[in-house]
């Protein structure tokens, strides 16, 4: 699926020259390495790349990438990233967000983002806990589980992030694992090359606060659905039966959890236009003059607006 291009930028170029302050053994390191490799393989340059993070451990990832990095408020990376991408569609925009950032405080944005299908790669780091505030339950921790910081077992249920992404309209849905870097690089590349909003959940042990779903726990449970023959692609001419078949297979996979945990690409839907395409359809000038690249004044600094049509519309005499 991915086209091999000779990379001008190497993994080293994307590694920011600063210290990293995640806990030793944190799954975030794996995700970060996969991001470096994916960026280098895709041949994008640092200045065309914007990594937008939220609040939490995941929201530090953009500091470690040599690219434009935007550290937003808790829960807000997606709307900020949407503004960036719509204003300058030439940029490659990544969201790095956590399970609390995405599924709790930013849930409204997550849901409504699906309705728009802006061409963004959304990577959700899922470790089921709020690490930076010392291990509270996040919206992805199942009901009744008690990780080590919880005074009582989790009294709230969990959100199935992949299912939520599906019902709200994300057009590429996948899941990876922080320590399977080879697979993760492939998933990040495919998500990025997908035209539209791609949601990649990354399962990630938190060695400090999640003593249940550890590296050892995940060991032997994870498998790649695509290697087992699962085809995630919704064909352009899919009839109702094909569509229903894919949706049924999708549901079966995303609710599988326990002894076997599926990873890989769950859905690829190229049949919906991106938000950028929808805007361009209404406003053809958008392709030529997106908001960031619109000339708004003449050489003397004067407004370019022709007031005449507005006069005609509101003419009093």
């Amino acid at each position, binding site marked *: 699926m991915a086209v091999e291009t000779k990379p001008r930028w190497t993994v080293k170029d994307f590694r920011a020259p600063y210290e990293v302050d995640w806990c030793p053994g944190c799954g975030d390191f794996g995700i970060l390495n996969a991001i470096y490799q994916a960026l280098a393989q895709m041949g994008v340059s640092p200045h065309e790349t914007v990594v937008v993070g939220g609040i939490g451990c995941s929201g530090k990832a953009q500091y470690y990438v040599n690219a434009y990095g*935007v550290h937003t408020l808790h829960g807000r990376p997606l709307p*900020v990233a949407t*503004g960036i991408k719509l204003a300058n569609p030439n*940029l490659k925009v990544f969201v790095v967000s956590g399970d609390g950032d995405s599924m709790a405080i930013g849930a409204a944005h997550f849901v409504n983002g699906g309705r728009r299908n802006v061409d963004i790669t959304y990577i959700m780091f899922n470790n089921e806990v709020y690490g930076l505030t010392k291990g509270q339950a996040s919206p992805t921790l199942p009901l009744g589980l008690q990780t080590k910081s919880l005074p009582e077992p989790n009294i709230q249920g969990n959100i199935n992030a992949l299912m939520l992404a599906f019902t709200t309209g994300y057009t590429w849905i996948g899941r990876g694992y922080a320590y399977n870097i080879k697979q993760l690089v492939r998933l990040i590349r495919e998500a990025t090359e997908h035209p539209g909003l791609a949601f990649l959940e990354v399962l990630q042990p938190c060695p400090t606060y999640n003593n249940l779903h550890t590296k050892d726990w995940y060991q032997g449970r994870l498998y790649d659905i695509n290697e087992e023959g699962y085809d995630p692609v919704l064909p352009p001419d899919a009839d109702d039966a094909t569509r229903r078949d894919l949706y049924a297979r999708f549901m079966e996979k995303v609710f599988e959890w326990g002894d076997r945990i599926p990873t890989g690409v769950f859905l690829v839907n190229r049949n919906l236009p991106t938000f950028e395409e929808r805007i361009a359809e209404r406003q053809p000038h958008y392709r030529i003059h997106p908001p*960031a690249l619109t000339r708004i004044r003449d050489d003397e600094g*004067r407004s370019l607006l022709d007031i005449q049509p507005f006069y005609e519309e509101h003419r009093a005499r």
Partner: protein
Amino acid sequence: MKTVGELSWRIGGPQGSGVDTAARLFSLAASLGGLNVLGRREYYSNIIGRHSYYDVRLSATRQPRSHRIRVDLLTSFEAETLARHALSVVPGGGIIYNVKDEDTPFLRITFLDERVRQDLARVLTEEGVEHTTSTKGLLELAEKRGVQLYPVPYDELFKTLSERFDVPLGIAQRTRNTLAVALSFALLEFPREFLKEALARVFASKPKVVELNQAAVDVIYDYMASSHSNLAFDFRLEGVTQDGPRMMLNANQAVAIGKLAGGLTFQTYYPISPATDESVYLEAHTTYRTREGDEQGVVVVQTEDEISAIAMASGAALTGARAATATSGPGFSLMVEQLGWTSMTETPLVITLYMRGGPSTGMPTRTDQGDLFFALFAGHGEAPRIVYASGDVEEAFYDAIRTLNYAEMFQMPVIHLVDKALASTTVTLPVPDPTQVPIRRGEIFVPEEDEGQRIVKRFSLDTETGISPRVLLGTPHVHHWMTGGEHTEEGRVTEDPVIRVRMHDKRLAKLEYAAKTIPAEEKFQVFGPEDADFTVISWGSTKGAILEALEILEQKGLRGRFVQVKLLMPFPKEIAPLLERRPLILVELTRTAQLARLLRMELGVEVDHRILKYSGRPFSFEELVDALEAVLERREEEVTVLQLFE
């Protein structure tokens, strides 16, 4: 003596019945006839049924600046309008009403509030009229006061129309708004051609509707000629010749067009009254023509909430797009966290804040100035922002360009304060000139040719003014970070105490730079003589009523000066000497006199008197004349204005 060419006209009716269309027709026809127009709309947060009304003030000689409490001609087609507004009509004025409504019990009027019923009964009892619980008493009292009554058999007129033009009665009844307007103009002896032209313009896409409505105009003019005469009525209108083209705009439209003139390319919003109309206007005008003949425009996104609206606009602003959002109190409350982020990250962003009655949901469709302090201080921490207020519709246009400039020049959020009153005030005005306010984009970093990729100091501390050149996302050869956390020059989070102090100083220094850079004439305006007998200070939409009130007081020998503050943050300290002609009187649409507190805080100046209104309705100049007289002659420290039937 008959007043010619000056009129205060009111029409009312249930929401959804076309009151707005009627007012638009009336305003447009008057304007086509050369008259200057100011329209003011009052309505409920409701879709169909509740009472809305519309005041149109006309003048042959000058642009009216505020609405009037006292009505010269009231036009109604149902009983609730009579009940609510008959008492506002001046002696010598007139009431046009449906004969069917001449004796409707107040209790039968569904949406008439109990409080209004009680006050009507009380007033009618005090006035000693026979009927105190129905419209009959109101008409009786009106007649006693010298108001002319014009009962009209609407049903018969519809029937006439239906028969004469062979259309079903239901279709004929749809001309109701035209009828109401035509009755008024016929009584005023205003040439019918202007109304016919207005009809042709308003219903341009529906030739059949135009034809029928124009026919209805003739029916009405004939009817009035045979049934009612202008003789006893104190008002007349005639067409006048005026120089120069005029537009008719409200502040929602003026701000929207002003933003386009100012180079806005990205707007976000979540629906909220009374801000939404601006964004919807932009959605209907996403593509415009430049003076050079190109097509370009603005991207407008309706978001899931106001948090997303301001976050998305912030993101667009980072790329160099001129970005803005528009909202009202509750929405602005949601935006506050991100407001701090834009301040911290030095992101240029305009938030147009249409103030309405608060707190909480308050009164969504009624005006207020209670958000002043909120705009000034919203958010945690010390977050610089510019707060700028427009005084009228024309200012709103130019200020929309200015605020976009300020945002980029000083790299901070700008809160542009307008209010519901301006949003629903429609005026005739000269065609605004987009080139009058030059577009200024502030300092933008330009990379050197192919120097290789490097990290750039977006938040460089090597600056006297606090301004570091903005590095737009996507600028080649460089990259940097940005964060709502305290940060280094490269935009990386830091908790270092020394860097913290330098960065905090740098951000706040920009406010001083803004105070030095923004010219005085943009910060405030002063009206009236230097040696005035008193000084009025205010801000925002009160401007028009104050200016008209001062003119009237001057005729009475009371010479006042008006200081209109436009820039509220950073506060223009140079106005202090302008406030020395005492007494100093604050006029504001609040209970707590916020500008008076701000003057104390910023200048150590105390106002002597406060004139306040917080019923959700704007000041009329008549109210201010009365209130200023109470203050100047009776030395009342505080006057609060409240109308029973507004």
